[in-house]
């Protein structure tokens, strides 16, 4: 028997659209669970936001990771960050981060903000990658632009994506939109995501479900776990 997933109880339709698919065609995407976004002294903390909001999805994501690893599902982690010489940092992105008091590349409590190799850029221990899992480093909000993610997914024969990570309305949504345009069937998990503003989290999830699922579907990690067969 090959492990399978679906149909998952989801909004606005039982996910995926094609009923039940082998786990081998599905990937779990963990977007930017980095100290800079959900750890003390990181970028989001430095901007003055409440990191309890961005940390809220960690326990459910850790539990889901354990479950899908047992099933043999492909797990992909992404990290937002820039080269130490900032050669891949668009000037407007740098300017805006400086304007809000946390300039990308400057020194913070967790090392240089959003710079590759720094402590703040690392994924937090609760959901850290294990050997054999793919890590995609991205310079933008979307995980497809200027990365090899699409190639990695196609090489593995992946057609379906389950998304977790932070923040819901920024990096997770941008990545989901990119994936949807590329024809991947996407599911975002409400309990495995989070935003710096709770109303943006809610609105971002709601947007997914409009027009018959314009970007895919919304479910919870329990719904996913309940819909998998080993």
């Amino acid at each position, binding site marked *: 028997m090959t492990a399978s997933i679906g149909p998952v109880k989801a909004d606005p339709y039982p996910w995926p659209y094609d009923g039940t698919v082998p786990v081998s065609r599905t990937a779990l995407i963990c977007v930017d669970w980095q100290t800079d976004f959900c750890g003390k002294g990181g970028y989001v903390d430095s901007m003055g936001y409440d990191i309890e909001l961005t940390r809220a999805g960690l326990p459910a994501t850790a539990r889901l990771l354990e479950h899908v690893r047992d099933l043999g599902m492909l797990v992909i982690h992404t990290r937002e960050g820039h080269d130490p010489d900032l050669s891949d940092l668009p000037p407007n992105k740098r300017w*805006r981060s400086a304007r809000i008091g946390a300039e990308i590349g400057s020194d913070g409590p967790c090392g240089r903000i959003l710079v590759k190799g720094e402590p703040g850029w690392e994924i937090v221990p609760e959901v850290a990658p294990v050997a054999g899992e793919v890590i995609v480093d991205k310079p933008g909000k979307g995980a497809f632009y200027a990365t090899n993610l699409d190639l990695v997914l196609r090489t593995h024969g992946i057609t379906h994506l389950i998304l977790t990570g932070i923040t819901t309305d920024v990096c997770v949504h941008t990545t989901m*939109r990119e994936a949807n345009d590329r024809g991947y069937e996407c599911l975002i998990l409400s309990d495995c995501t989070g935003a710096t503003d709770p109303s*943006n989290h809610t609105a971002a999830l709601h947007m997914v479900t*409009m027009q018959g699922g314009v970007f895919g579907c919304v479910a919870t990690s329990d719904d996913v776990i309940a819909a998998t067969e080993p």
Partner: protein
Amino acid sequence: MPTVDAKPAPFTFDTDSTVLLVIDMQRDFLLPGGFGESLGNDVSQLSRTIEPLSVLMAAWRAQNLPIIHTREGHEPDLSDCPPSKLARGGIGEQGSFGRILIRGEYGHDIVDELQPLPGEPVIDKPGKGAFYATDLADILDKFGTKKLIVTGVTTEVCVHTTVREANDRGYDCLVLADCVGSYFPEFQRVGLEMIAAQGGIFGWVADSPAVIAALQEQK
């Protein structure tokens, strides 16, 4: 250089390197009887953008500045429509204005008031974002574009996806609140808020009269 009063900060642009982008102002989305309305949406939420947008386009054209239009749609044989999108229904089916979101059909084209002029590029896109699987990036490069003034529909779907793509590619984006529309007032509000949040995480937000005033001041 023209400077526009915008959120979260003033937006300054050079007319030599700024493009006006008009997203998906297609009959199927905007007209009564079209695809959008057939899904139960209130198209007046979108059609209110036509008037300010036509005034802005006239002011932009008066200074011979570039406009790029986009249209969402698919090949008649649907070979460029992902199965997951097709399964959600509508696309390729017969609607009041021809086959829904199919290139060459009446409903797929841009509304009369905002028709492109000869020489203005029209980007046909299969997705929500205008960069994926199109030559938009090449055209912007050719124009030497650094900044985009973004208009069109719908705010939280195609406008947002395109602005997110443009932002990751390093373009400064100014989104015009009165020239973008959503079927859902709540998404219009929160969609604009998200753009200007966190110091302008995706760009800037203003209204079209501020852009027109800035253009005229620098003449």
